[in-house]
C-alpha cells in the first residue's frame, strides 16, 4: 500500500489519546494540515475514545476558523485497522485538499512555559 | 364586610353587589388623549378601571399618570403596580403620590420578567414581591408607617388592596396556599387570570371556599373575550399561565372568520352567567385587550348594567 510521502504518522493506542492541543502543536511545528484516523464509530476498543477525538476535532476546527485558518486543515476520519486501501485513499484526499489550500505561513513565533 | 376606604369598588362589594372592573392599557408614547378615550368608553359600565403597569415589561405611559388622569375625569382608577421595576423607596413614593390624587385602589403584582419586553437587557429590581407589596400598602394605610419607620400624621394612603391570582399556574395545590398568604398579608380583593378552563377554575374556587378564603377576600373572575382563533392559539401557546382548552379553540375555529368575534363574546357571556352562580365570586374583571370598546356591550348583555349607586361614590 502506498500513500503520499508528505505524511508524518504519529501512532497512538486510541485516538481518544489525542488532545486538542496536539492538533494545534502539529500546526505550530510546521504541518499544513492534520487528520485523525480513528476506528469506526461504535467499534472503539476503549468504548468511545474516537467520539472524544471527534469532539476535539470539531472544537479545533471552529477555533481555527475564528483565527483565520481554514477549518478544512483539520479533519477526522473513521476506518478499521484492516482497511489499508481506504487509509491510502484518505491520505490522498487530505493531501489534495491541503495542496489546494496552500501552505500555511511557518510559525516563527516562540512561546515557552514559564516556571513559576 | 363594610368598606373602610373611600374606594367605590370596595363599597360596591361591601353592599353585596357583583362588582365589574375592566382595564386600560396606556399608549407607548406621551399622548394625553388615549387613556381619556379608553376610560370614557367605560364610564358608567364599570365600578373601577385598572391601569396596567408596563405590562409584559413593555414600556408604556406609567400607570400612576394614567390613574391620575382617570381620577380627574371623575372615574375610579385601580393602580396596578409591579415590583419588577422599582425598589421600596420608589414604591412607597409612588404610593404617596397616588394618595395625594385620591387613588383608592391598588393591584399588587410582581410583574412579568423583563426578558419578555422590549428592553430585555435592562436590570430588574424585585426588591420585594407582590406579597410584600401588599404588606407595605397595608402598613402605610393602617399604621401610617413607612417600611423604614417614618410615621405619617396625615396623608395616609386609603387604599383598597388587591392582588392577582392565577388558578391555572403550577403547582396547582399551592395556588390556594398562596392566596391564603396574600390574604394574611392584607389582600382584600383578587382579580384572577382570564378563565377558559371552567372545570379547573371551579376546582380552585372549591379549594378557596374550603379554606374559608371566600369570606375574607372578594374574588373577581377574570374574563377576556376571544376575538379570533389566532388570538386563542397565541394565548394557549405563547403566554405562560393561560390555560385554553382544545374545546375552546375548536369552538372558535368552528365558525367562519367574520363570526369569530361574536362567538368569542357569546362564550364570555356564557362564562359570566355560569360564574354568577359560583359561590365566592364577587364580580368580574373584564380584560378586553385592545378591544375596550366591547366592554360596555358585554356588561349590558351580561345583565350587569346599570351599575349600582353607592354612598359617597362619584
Amino acid at each position: 500500500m502506498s500513500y503520499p510521502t508528505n505524511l508524518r504518522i504519529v501512532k497512538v493506542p486510541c485516538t481518544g489519546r489525542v488532545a486538542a492541543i496536539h492538533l494545534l502543536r502539529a500546526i505550530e511545528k510546521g504541518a499544513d494540515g492534520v487528520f485523525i484516523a480513528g476506528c469506526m464509530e461504535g467499534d472503539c476498543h476503549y468504548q468511545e475514545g474516537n467520539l472524544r477525538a471527534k469532539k476535539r476535532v470539531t472544537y479545533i476546527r471552529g477555533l481555527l476558523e475564528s483565527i483565520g485558518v481554514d477549518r478544512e486543515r483539520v479533519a477526522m476520519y473513521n476506518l478499521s485497522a484492516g482497511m489499508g486501501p481506504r487509509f491510502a485513499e484518505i491520505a490522498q484526499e487530505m493531501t489534495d485538499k491541503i495542496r489546494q489550500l496552500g501552505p500555511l505561513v511557518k510559525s516563527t513565533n516562540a512561546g515557552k512555559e514559564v516556571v513559576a | 364586610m363594610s368598606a373602610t376606604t373611600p374606594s367605590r369598588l370596595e363599597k360596591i362589594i361591601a353592599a353585596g353587589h357583583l362588582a365589574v372592573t375592566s382595564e386600560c392599557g396606556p399608549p407607548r408614547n406621551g399622548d394625553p388623549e388615549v387613556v381619556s378615550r379608553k376610560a370614557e368608553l367605560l364610564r358608567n359600565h364599570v365600578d373601577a378601571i385598572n391601569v396596567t403597569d408596563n405590562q409584559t415589561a413593555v414600556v408604556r405611559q406609567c400607570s400612576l399618570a394614567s390613574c391620575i388622569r382617570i381620577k380627574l375625569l371623575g372615574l375610579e382608577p385601580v393602580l396596578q403596580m409591579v415590583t419588577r421595576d422599582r425598589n421600596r423607596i420608589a414604591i412607597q413614593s409612588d404610593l404617596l403620590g397616588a394618595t395625594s390624587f385620591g387613588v383608592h385602589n391598588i393591584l399588587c403584582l410582581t410583574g412579568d420578567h423583563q426578558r419578555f419586553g422590549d428592553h430585555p437587557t435592562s436590570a430588574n429590581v424585585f426588591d420585594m414581591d407582590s406579597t410584600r407589596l401588599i404588606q407595605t400598602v397595608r402598613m402605610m394605610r393602617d399604621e401610617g408607617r413607612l417600611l423604614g419607620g417614618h410615621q405619617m400624621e396625615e396623608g395616609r394612603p386609603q387604599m383598597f388592596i388587591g392582588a392577582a391570582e392565577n388558578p391555572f399556574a403550577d403547582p396547582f395545590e399551592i395556588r390556594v396556599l398562596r392566596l391564603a398568604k396574600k390574604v394574611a398579608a392584607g389582600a382584600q380583593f383578587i382579580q384572577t387570570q382570564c378563565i377558559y378552563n371552567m372545570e379547573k377554575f371551579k376546582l380552585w374556587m372549591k379549594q378557596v371556599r374550603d379554606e374559608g378564603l371566600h369570606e375574607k377576600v372578594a374574588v373577581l373572575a377574570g374574563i377576556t373575550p376571544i376575538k379570533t382563533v389566532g388570538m386563542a392559539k397565541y394565548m394557549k401557546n405563547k403566554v405562560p399561565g393561560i390555560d385554553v382548552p382544545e374545546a375552546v379553540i375548536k369552538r372558535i375555529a368552528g365558525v367562519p372568520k367574520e363570526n369569530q368575534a361574536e362567538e368569542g363574546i357569546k362564550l364570555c357571556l356564557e362564562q359570566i352567567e355560569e360564574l354568577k352562580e359560583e359561590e365566592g365570586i364577587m364580580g368580574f374583571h373584564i380584560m378586553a385587550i385592545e378591544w375596550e370598546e366591547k366592554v360596555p356591550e358585554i356588561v349590558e348583555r351580561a345583565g350587569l348594567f346599570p351599575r349600582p349607586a353607592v354612598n359617597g361614590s362619584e
Partner: protein
Amino acid sequence: MIMAKPKKAEEIISRVKDFSRVLVAGCKGCVAICEAGGQKEVEVLASAMRIHFSQIGKRIEIDEVSLSRQCDKEYLQELADSIDSYDAVISLACGAGVQFLTEMYGEKPVFPGVDTCFIGVTEEQGVWSERCQACGNCMLGETGGICPITRCSKRMLNGPCGGSENGKCEISLLVGRDVACGWHLIYERLKKLGELERFRRPSEDKDWTASRDGGPRQIIRKDVRP
C-alpha cells in the same frame, strides 16, 4: 465554585495584537474545573494565538503559566521574577483573580480571558449551573435547601409567581432551555419535609445591605488574623 466560560479567541487577539511579549496566565482553581482557564486552556489559547500571528506575519512571543490560584498573593508572587519581561498579560482567572493580578503587577496591561459567570455546581461534565447569589444572609434553612434568590428569576420570597408552568420558569420560553421554577422545587421539597405551613406565612423582609446592593463587601475575621 466560580463558573466561567472562555472568551472568544478573536476578542482576546484583538486586545493584544500590538504587543510583542505576552504572558497567558491560567489558574488551576475554579476556572480549571469548568474547563475555561486551566492549564489545558492556556496551552490551547497560546498555541492558537501563535498560529494566528504567524499567519499575519507578526512576530510575537506568547508564553504560558498556570498558577495554583490567582486570588492569593502567595501564588501571584511566583510571577514576580518573570513578569517584567512581558508587555501584557492575559489572565484566564475569574474576575477576582484578574483584578488581584492587576493589583500586584499594575504597570502591565492585564486582559481577561474568560467571562466570569456565577457561583455554581457541576451538574454533569460540561453542564454547570448557578446556585448561589452571595446575598450575604443565607436563608436556605427556611426553604428546604433551595435558594429563592438564585433560582427564582424574580428572587421572590413568596413565590411562585403566576408564570410557573409544569415546574418551569416563564423565562424558559425565551432563553431556549428549561429553567426550573425555583419555587416549584422549594414547594416539592417542603412538602417532602412536611413544612408546607411556611407557605401560609408571608416571609420576613429581605435586608439587601449584605448583598451587592450594599456596596463592595469585605469580611474581616479578627480571630484568624495574625
